[in-house]
């Protein structure tokens, strides 16, 4: 168990692993008939692979990697639309660095930048706001990307732009929400999900109640978890204990950071600036009802879709995935990354074909980085 030595507290890790094994045995799960636990958040996927948790735990547990990596679920058409906006006269297009290498149908933002588009990586939408203040003769567009963790940052930025009456700042809104795709996965008759490890930092914003439907309507346990390996093991144990005891509850392992009702200031800003879209397209999952946010009409002056007539403001949209790309099947847990015909061949972290290979939080990139050798040996 070479990985166990990397834990901050190896003794605690071993104790948790023992407890996990006992509960799995109590349940009667085996390698042939495993318990399926989905970790929703891409950060958790990364940590599971980094620390080899999937191999350390009892082999009666199978982790299913969820759709919680915003870069990975971004449709190629949205990248194309970013490039279209970036190509407009006078535009400075700003984005989180994570989105730079995501392939569009023709190219990525990184390639468009190399070809001369003024595309800049920023750390925060506040940087984009500052760029707009300093460049009043340019139109500064920020690529609003991410789940509820990053949504407050663009909401606050739009509010600030409105207060300052900036006329050259807008957001290309692609914010998405966690609960909607989970419902889709739970409704999918091909999916077998016995419990969930819930996202930590998303829950810090929205609290734990948005997951009530998972326990109450679907009878599945969910435990909101922190990012340390010990947090994850503790959370997996809590999910298993619920299954053993026949309980289905929303539990909070990460209460030291996640308040039950989330962050009220952030939620108020989100609600002021955004409203649910009737539906939004997810790579690999298709259109999902009320899974994305759009900018409310009262802030239309800061909405890049309205300003440029692009995205859901345009009449036609939607493109096919590249040939041989199985991101959709991997995203829904129906296929392991190594079983994709492009994995490690046409698709690597250096030259990603599918979005799951781009981000360190994507299941394919995690497999490639940490699991390639051992997967090949299986």
């Amino acid at each position: 168990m070479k990985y166990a030595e990397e834990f901050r507290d190896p003794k605690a890790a071993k104790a948790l692993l023992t407890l996990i094994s006992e509960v799995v045995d109590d349940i009667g799960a085996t390698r042939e008939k495993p318990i399926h636990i989905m970790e929703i958040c891409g950060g958790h996927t990364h940590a599971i692979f980094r620390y080899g948790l999937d191999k350390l735990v009892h082999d009666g547990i199978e982790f299913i990697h969820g759709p919680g990596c915003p870069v990975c679920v971004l449709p190629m058409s949205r990248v194309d639309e970013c490039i279209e906006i970036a190509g407009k006269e006078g535009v400075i297009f700003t984005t989180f660095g994570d989105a730079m290498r995501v392939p569009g149908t023709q190219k990525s933002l990184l390639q468009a930048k190399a070809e001369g588009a003024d595309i800049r990586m920023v750390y925060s939408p506040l940087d984009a706001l500052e760029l707009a203040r300093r460049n009043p003769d340019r139109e500064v567009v920020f690529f609003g990307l991410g789940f509820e963790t990053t949504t407050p940052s663009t909401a606050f930025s739009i509010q600030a732009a409105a207060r300052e009456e900036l006329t050259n700042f807008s957001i290309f809104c692609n914010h998405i929400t966690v609960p909607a795709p989970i419902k889709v996965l739970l409704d999918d008759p091909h999916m077998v999900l016995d419990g969930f490890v819930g996202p930590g930092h998303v829950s810090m914003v929205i609290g734990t109640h948005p997951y009530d439907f998972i326990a109450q309507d679907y009878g599945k346990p969910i435990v909101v978890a922190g990012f340390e390996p010990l947090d994850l093991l503790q959370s997996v144990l809590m999910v298993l204990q619920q299954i053993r005891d026949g309980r289905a509850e929303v539990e909070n392992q990460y209460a030291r950071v996640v308040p039950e009702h989330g962050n009220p200031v952030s939620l108020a800003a989100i609600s002021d600036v955004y409203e649910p879209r009737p539906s939004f397209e997810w790579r690999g999952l298709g259109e999902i009802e009320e899974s994305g946010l759009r900018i409310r009409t009262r802030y239309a002056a800061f909405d890049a879709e309205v300003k440029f007539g692009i995205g859901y403001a345009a009449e036609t949209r939607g493109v096919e995935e590249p040939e041989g790309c199985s991101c959709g099947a991997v995203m829904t847990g129906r296929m392991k990354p190594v079983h994709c015909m492009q994995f490690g061949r046409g698709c690597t972290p250096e030259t990603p074909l599918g979005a799951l290979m781009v981000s360190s939080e994507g299941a394919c990139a995690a497999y490639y980085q940490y699991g390639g050798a051992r997967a090949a040996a299986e």
Partner: protein
Amino acid sequence: MCLGIPGQIIAVTQPEKMMALAEVSGVRREVNVAPVATGPLDDLIGKWILIHVGFAMALIDEDEAAATLEALRGLGEAQEALDAMAAGDAALEGGS
């Protein structure tokens, strides 16, 4: 961009914009503290926070800050966040 990074607030810089200076692994960066500001901003000085894309999203204690930083380092995400901050600074000057 999804995982926050811990920092410590060392000064309030633009109270009207809810901005404060935070120290993050030896790097100083202005952050917006609106999400954690429930009282006078000066009360935040010395407090540890979890910073997401330039916003203080949660107050944490020092032990939690240290443990989170260690977890992020293990995942390579601490350096990623610091690099992104540097990229943000460069973007303001026309680079990145």
